[in-house]
Structures are given as structure tokens and as C-alpha cells.
């Protein structure tokens, strides 16, 4: 069977896996970015209350392999709490937790490193604080934030594959199931690789382009 034949024959299985992956990554991207930006802003404004605890959590999380964290949340934690949680929900929350603290660190660092001289220039030009926020702080911060944010979200998309290991029927797990039936690993995993390349490469490329473009714009600092 060719790649195309496999995709057509098992389209429903692939599609259901794709939908689960997209749902998972959609939840993790949206919640992680929203929570992350909130925590990042609070960490910048209230270092003692939010900044240091958030950094401690990020530091702790960076020391635990993601797979260990996922398995720990799926097996021992649920056993300790004596609950059974749907693996999709477990994967969503673990990935959201990691994404939140990854994004919050990026946001906090961008805010902390904001070139204050641009705000001073706005002040002496008589700009109001609202105009300064909308026309100076926000656009510059956004340009600084976007490249690392995009790169981190690509990493999160790739990390969704680990959800298959706790029985979430996402794309990788569906590909494994189909391969168990037809045993065409080259074709199936090539198709899977192409799918991820089609999503991840443009995002990574966009991140690189934005970084090159906007870091150049700030070069006169």
C-alpha cells in the first residue's frame, strides 16, 4: 500500500487521531498562553509574591522530564488521590501546566528587559500613559515576545505525542494502531512526519523571520 492508499483506507482513524491532537494542542495553546501571559505579567509586577514562586516552579519543572511528569500525574497521583481521570484531561492539564510556566518565563523576561528609554522618550514627548502603552510598549513587547513564543508552542505541539503513552488516542497512537494492522512503518511514520513538518516548519520559520526582522529593528539600542 502507498502512503496515499493508507491515508484513504484509514482516513477515519487518522482523522479521529488528528482531531484529538488538534483538540489537545488547542486547549494547551490557548490555556497555556492565557495563563502564562497572566502569570508572566504578575511575576514582573509582583516579583516577591508571584515572580520568585513562579520561577521556582519553572525551575522545578525544567528538572523533571516531561514524560515522567505525565506518567506521575497519570498513575501515582491518581492512585494517591484515589481518583480515575480521563487520560486526555490528564495530558491536557500537564501540558497546560508546562506551557503556562514556559510562557510566563518568556513574558516575564521580555517585560523585564523592555528598554525603558523608549518610555522615557514617550514621557518627554508628552504621550499619555495609554498612548505609551498602546503605541510604544505593546508593539515593542509583542515583537520581542512573538519569536520565542512561537518556538515554545512548536515544542508543545511536538510534546503532545507523549500523550499516546498514557493511552490518549491522538494522531501518533492512531498511527501506531494502523501500523499494527498493516505493518507499513515507513509509509505511516513518513506520513506522520510530513504532517508535523507541515505545521512545525512554517511556525519555526515564522519565528526565525520575526526574530531576524525585529531584532534588527532594535539594533540601535
Amino acid at each position: 500500500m502507498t502512503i496515499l492508499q493508507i491515508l484513504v483506507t484509514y482516513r477515519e482513524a487518522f482523522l479521529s487521531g488528528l482531531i484529538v491532537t488538534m483538540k489537545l494542542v488547542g486547549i494547551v495553546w490557548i490555556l497555556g498562553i492565557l495563563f502564562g501571559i497572566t502569570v508572566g505579567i504578575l511575576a514582573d509586577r509582583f516579583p516577591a509574591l508571584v515572580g520568585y514562586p513562579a520561577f521556582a516552579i519553572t525551575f522545578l519543572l525544567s528538572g523533571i522530564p516531561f514524560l515522567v511528569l505525565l506518567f506521575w500525574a497519570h498513575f501515582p497521583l491518581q492512585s494517591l488521590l484515589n481518583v480515575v481521570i480521563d487520560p486526555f484531561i490528564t495530558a491536557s492539564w500537564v501540558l497546560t501546566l508546562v506551557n503556562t510556566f514556559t510562557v510566563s518565563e518568556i513574558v516575564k523576561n521580555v517585560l523585564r528587559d523592555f528598554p525603558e528609554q523608549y518610555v522615557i522618550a514617550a514621557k518627554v514627548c508628552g504621550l499619555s500613559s495609554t498612548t505609551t502603552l498602546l503605541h510604544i510598549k505593546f508593539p515593542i513587547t509583542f515583537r520581542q515576545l512573538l519569536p520565542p513564543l512561537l518556538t515554545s508552542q512548536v515544542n508543545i505541539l511536538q510534546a503532545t505525542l507523549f500523550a499516546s503513552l498514557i493511552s490518549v488516542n491522538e494522531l501518533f497512537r492512531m498511527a501506531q494502531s494502523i501500523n499494527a494492522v498493516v505493518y507499513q512503518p515507513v509509509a505511516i511514520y513518513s506520513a506522520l512526519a510530513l504532517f508535523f513538518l507541515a505545521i512545525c516548519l512554517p511556525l519555526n520559520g515564522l519565528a526565525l523571520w520575526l526574530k531576524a526582522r525585529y531584532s534588527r529593528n532594535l539594533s540601535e539600542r
Partner: protein
Amino acid sequence: MLAAINISKSYGRVHVLRDISVSVHPGKITVLLGPSGAGKTTLLKCMGLLERSDCGTVRIDGKEFHFPVAEGHSMRPPWPELTVVFQQHFLWPHLSIRQNILLPVQHRTDLSLPRFHELIDLFDMGDFIDRYPNETSMGQRQRAALARAFVLNPKFLLLDEITSALDVEQIHNLFLHLAEMRKRGIGILLITHLLGFARALVEGAEGDEVVFLDNGVVIEKGGVELFDNPHTERLKKFISGTRFNT
């Protein structure tokens, strides 16, 4: 008039300014000279209300700002009637030169488009008005920064070492721009290391002032005669030591 009266400023145990009084009159230039670390930029920031002095008063056209500011009281500095051009220009990098100049005045009704075009001509910015700051030379950025300040119709303009990194032709053009601003009634406080430039600016201009600052203290102040007949040994030494820098 813009005046700093008995201003003092310390950072921790380091006294940067000690009981300094300096004034800038409308249509006049006050040149601030002194070695590095003398406290010139700190004084400029204090007079521009970007730094709070430890004590003293800053008077801007009759409005007084007393220091230290009482707890719970906030200052409302009269920016942009009093504005500052910095050595590094601080043009907003995501905006073109045109946008940099127009953003501060887009909500103001006292600027007409002919005035903006007049500024483009005055500062010879036609060739680069739609470029981004990173696409322009240092001299072009400086003209843009001056134009951004000038378009605001300031009464007082504080200039912090804007001659650095400029070639002789650009310095000559800057000289003409400053003379034009003075003619239009703007009071200018200028920090520069270029004695020849400072001298040329105040020479023949009635009422312009030269202030020599060292170690946070005003050592001497006066007119253009200060360059030829300094009274203190410190200023004599400073002037003789700058023979390579005219």
C-alpha cells in the same frame, strides 16, 4: 525661564550634585561643560524632571517643583513644553521616522501639516522620512530626534551630548539647527564635550551662558569670555587639556 535652584542629588553615599543653581532663558543657550562624571547628565535629568532631586527647586515658567516631594504627592511635569533629546536619540524602533515625529502630535490640534513639511525641509529629512530608525545613519537619527522634539513647540529643550558620534559636517548642520531654534525663542540647555562647538554657539549671542561643572559643583559660569579668561585653575586645566577636541 527654566531654573534649577540649589539642587542636590546623591546616589547612596555618592554626592553627584551639590547645591547647584543653573538657569535657561527663552531664546538663549546655556552650555554645560565638564569632565565625565561631573554630574552634567544628572543635572539635565533633574532639570527635565526625569530624576527627583534630593533637595532644591526646579522652576519652569513660574511653576515650582520643590524637592524632596512630599509623600503621597505626585509631580505633573510640563512635558512636552520642556523636552529632552538624548545622546542615543531613543527613536521608537517599530515606527518610521515620519511616525516617530507625528505620533506625539497626532492628538494635538496646534500642529498643521505645513509645519511638518517645514520641519522636513529644515532638517533635510526628505530622503529618509519613511525609513525605520535602523535604516538611517547616526546623523539622520539625530536630526529625526531633534525634529521630534521641535515639532512639539517646546519652550525649553534639553540636549544631552548630542554631538557625540557626529562628523564635522553633521556638527556644522546641528550648529545651524540650534541657532535656528534659539532664534525661534526656544531656551536650550546643551551638554557637550566639544569646546569649539560650544564657543561658536555662544559667541556673539547676547545672554547665552557657559557653566563649568566638576565633581557635582558649579566651578564657574559666565559668557563666552570664560573660554579665554577662565578664573579657576580647574577650568584652565580643562580647557588646555582639550586642545585635541575643538
